[in-house]
């Protein structure tokens, strides 16, 4: 497709990714879903007490330029050693993608999406190359898709490549 030698085919210079790997096709929606579900089951087994009770969301993001997966959970930002990526959280001179004030009743950075995307960005990913799936992990809704909240809509809609779980309607 991108053989420029004959002059018949223009070179593919409008790639949205800065990756040298010419963007791999992503896993299917079903594969993303089973990946995050399996991860969430393993996570839940490791937890007990308050942590297990409070675990309600899991997210997987796939970087199509590297083929890597990153997983996140709600309140992941409270884990020891968490490094806030300035693209999301901003720094002393620049705002981040996340809103400055929470648009709902939960603190900025609380979401599973933020945890997963933060890991991806800290690993050098470009947010435009990310595919995302978010699920409930409570007992009665385990595995069901979870539409993104107001804060994540603000930060990620129009930026991540695909969100299989859906965005807030009308936003």
């Amino acid at each position, binding site marked *: 497709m991108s053989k420029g030698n004959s002059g018949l085919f223009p070179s593919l210079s409008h790639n949205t990714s800065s990756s040298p790997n010419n963007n791999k096709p992503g896993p299917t929606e079903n594969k993303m879903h089973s990946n995050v579900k399996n991860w969430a089951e393993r996570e839940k087994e490791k937890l007990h*007490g308050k942590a297990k*009770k409070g675990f*309600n*969301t899991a997210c997987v993001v796939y970087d199509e330029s590297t083929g890597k997966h990153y997983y996140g959970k709600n309140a992941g930002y409270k884990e020891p050693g968490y490094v806030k990526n300035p693209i999301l959280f901003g720094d002393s001179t620049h705002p981040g993608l996340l809103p400055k004030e929470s*648009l*709902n009743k939960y603190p900025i950075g609380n979401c599973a999406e933020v945890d997963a995307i933060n890991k991806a960005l800290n690993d050098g990913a470009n947010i435009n190359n990310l595919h995302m799936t*978010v699920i409930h992990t*409570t007992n009665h809704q385990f595995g069901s898709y979870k539409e993104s*909240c107001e804060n994540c809509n603000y930060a990620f809609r129009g930026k991540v490549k695909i969100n299989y779980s859906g965005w807030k309607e009308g936003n």
Partner: protein
Amino acid sequence: MTDKFKNVSMNGRMAYTIMCVESYLAEKFPNKDWTLICKILWQATSSNWGDWSDIYSSVIPDVIFQYEEYSNEDYEGILSEEEFQNVKNLFSGITKGIENDPGDEVNYMLNKPFEMAMVYEGTVIGDGKESFNIIENAENILKKNGIALPDYKKVLFSSADEHNGWGNDFDGEYLSIILNKEQK
């Protein structure tokens, strides 16, 4: 049910749910001191629910019963060791800490505010039917025990027009019948 709370914010629905819990505790166990539990409960209306749910879950029976001994990791900064033991003693004999069992009424009711904080965490409120179900489940326990429902009009001030349906923060302690016994 849906009509009563349709225009009430999530924060207002939380307040009403806490009022239901208090009505239950005050009626069924009037000689027990619920002050600590209620102080933590009413922080919900003026706190973010990511942090509040972590604090409150510490005192729900099905959680605290999992800890045989005080855990610094999970309880430091929330309950002292003495408070931890006092809460366990408070629940002793009146609940087995069985999750999602309406038969274990104390644990079931005390879970309702936690469920309200969790139900839309990380997502959107939508039509709110899940939150109405939580309220209905709490009210059913009160009805089953012949306990009068709280006055829902006391939370109408917290409008679903505020803060994307979540409602503005407010100090809800004035609504407490346990912390303000003279208003009972």
